[in-house]
């Protein structure tokens, strides 16, 4: 039975998602609807990254590669049969006859991402620090190269189009809520607790019998599953995309959300996603305004990323634990009605 604090955390975070959905619904503006949908998808990706990074303390660059796997998997299996020849002229015959519903396709995308992660990552989990980061970066490059060049199933560097539109606000929000539950459950599970112990002191975790690579591996596989599902949902939202959608730029945005919110907690992932989405959309609107009003001679591009990068550096220097701090929202003073009865410490 999860403790009271975790349940409060869950309730507050789900409420945050619900409020966002309500705002989108009540405004009736299509743009806001789309922004909140993307926010919910990003939330799934950020939570996925938090599951691995927040608990193990290891930075992973490969995350967005798994998002790509999820997106391409569902795109491939849900593409209407009559469109296959047009989108993927060189598709293998075996695959040319299967067509799944988007829901199944997204689930399959998550599974394939998780399976790829499970198969590839086990030996990588022994590494720490810089070696771990460089291998995960290398993994991202490998996945990206494959997406760019495996024309038979990805249409190569060109746009993959014709994915059925199936992800709406409610689907995205529903899965985001599941992702919050999943991330909290993993954090409070035995694996999660031991993994966090290993993050703080790897040697000590060994002495209490924790097999650190196995713990990390479990986190990594769950993380890849969430990335795959997020990628699948995104594919059915955007309906056409190319491999460049799953590379360093997206990595930067998702990592930025987690870092700004605070990587150690699920609350941080949610806070970061919401805060960065608002800031991002605001800046983009500002950028567009500058461009339509022709304030400057040329077009303004990149301002959004410049500000986000500055915010990331600023946060890491001034408040390394992130906007949300180092405790889950349910454990903060806001919800502490009275001192804990087990008052061994003053």
């Amino acid at each position, binding site marked *: 039975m999860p403790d009271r604090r975790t349940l409060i955390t869950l309730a507050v975070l789900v409420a945050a998602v619900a409020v966002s959905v309500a705002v989108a619904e009540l405004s009736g503006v299509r743009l806001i609807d789309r922004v909140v949908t993307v926010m919910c998808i990003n939330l799934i990706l950020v939570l996925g990254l938090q599951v691995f*990074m927040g608990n193990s*303390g*290891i*930075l992973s660059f490969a995350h967005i590669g798994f998002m790509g796997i999820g997106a391409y998997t569902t795109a491939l299996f849900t593409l209407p049969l009559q469109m296959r020849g047009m989108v993927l002229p060189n598709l293998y015959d075996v695959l040319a006859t299967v067509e799944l519903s988007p829901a199944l396709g997204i689930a399959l995308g998550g599974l394939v991402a998780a399976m790829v992660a499970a198969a590839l990552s086990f*030996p*990588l989990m*022994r*590494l720490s*620090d*810089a*070696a771990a*980061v*460089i*291998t995960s*970066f*290398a*993994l991202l*490059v*490998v996945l990206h*190269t*494959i997406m*760019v*060049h495996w024309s038979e199933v990805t249409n190569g560097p060109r746009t993959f189009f014709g994915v059925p539109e199936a992800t709406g606000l409610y689907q995205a929000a529903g899965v985001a809520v599941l992702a919050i539950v999943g991330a909290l459950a993993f954090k409070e599970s035995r694996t999660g607790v031991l993994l966090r112990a290993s993050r703080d002191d790897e040697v000590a975790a060994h002495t209490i019998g924790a097999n650190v690579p196995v713990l990390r591996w479990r986190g990594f596989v769950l993380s890849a599953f969430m990335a795959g599902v997020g990628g699948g949902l995104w594919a059915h939202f955007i309906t056409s995309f190319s491999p460049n959608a799953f590379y*360093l730029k997206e990595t*930067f945005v998702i*990592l*930025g959300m987690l*870092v700004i919110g605070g990587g150690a907690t699920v609350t941080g992932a949610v806070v970061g996603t919401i805060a960065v989405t608002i800031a991002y959309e605001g800046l983009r609107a500002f950028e567009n305004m500058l461009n339509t009003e022709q304030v400057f001679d*040329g077009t*303004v*591009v*990149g*301002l959004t*990323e*410049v500000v*986000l*990068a*500055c915010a*990331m*550096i600023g946060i*890491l*220097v001034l408040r*390394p634990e992130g906007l949300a701090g180092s405790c889950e929202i349910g454990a903060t003073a806001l919800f502490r009605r009275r001192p804990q009865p087990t008052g061994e410490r003053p």
Partner: protein
Amino acid sequence: MGQVIQFAIDVLSLGSLYALMALGLVIVYGILRLVNFAYGELIMVAGYTLYLLDGTALPWLAMAAVAIVMAMVFGVLTEYVAFRPVRMKSVTAVLITSFAFSTLLQHAALLFISPRSRLVPTPALFTRTVEIAGVVVPLRNLLTIAAAVAVLALFTFLLRRTVLGIALRAAASQFRMTRMLGVPANLVITSAFAISGLLAGVVSLFWLGRIGSVVPGIGLEPLLVAFIATVIGGMRSLPGAVVGGYLLALIDVSLNTALPQALLQFRDAFTFSLVIVLLLWRPQGLIRGPATGQRT
């Protein structure tokens, strides 16, 4: 015979660039145990410096010198912005700040210059060719090799014969002890970043000389190259970085001639898989670095 010479010059000129790139990454990594993701952007900075100086009355060599100095300035700036404020915190924090700084520089170039590619001035010498034993070789390739030899000689002299160089080598193995002998930590670190910028600056002249233009994303490929080369050679060994650079060039040029076209496009996937395998098999790389060390 002609083919052998062609192959050798290709490997040596490409390897020279790779080796210098790798060295610039390792000199920082060796001392701080931190990967500088903003390293590729130093090439970009040098490139845009050349672009902005184009059209001034300066001779090319002067422009090149300014470009190298700018790369050094930005190398040191990376340290001040992305490393120094978070050095004591966590490894992950520094990796993220340097990644963020890399994005910052790239998008600043997008914002203030242009997303489109810009021509950089190259000296007339670069486009000439010479004939060696019946093989026509671009003079640029020979100049690349010569420049690398000169820079490596300078670098070796600096590390072997000057007190600062000795201090840099010492700091790579025992940072705290080096400080306890009176060597200021910040001096060592700033010097490492300046040297890193110098190497990137020299590389940029030849790298951009091959392509002829600069775009905001130009730093990614050299960064990846430096990653692979350092992993092959040993993350913490300076000679290892040089060996790794030339080895990677050998692998690349061989794959280019040996692989069928259909597989060639997956070359990056092959080389990066090699990186992963190598890191698993020998986390230290092929050449081991100095004994042990701590970072504070």
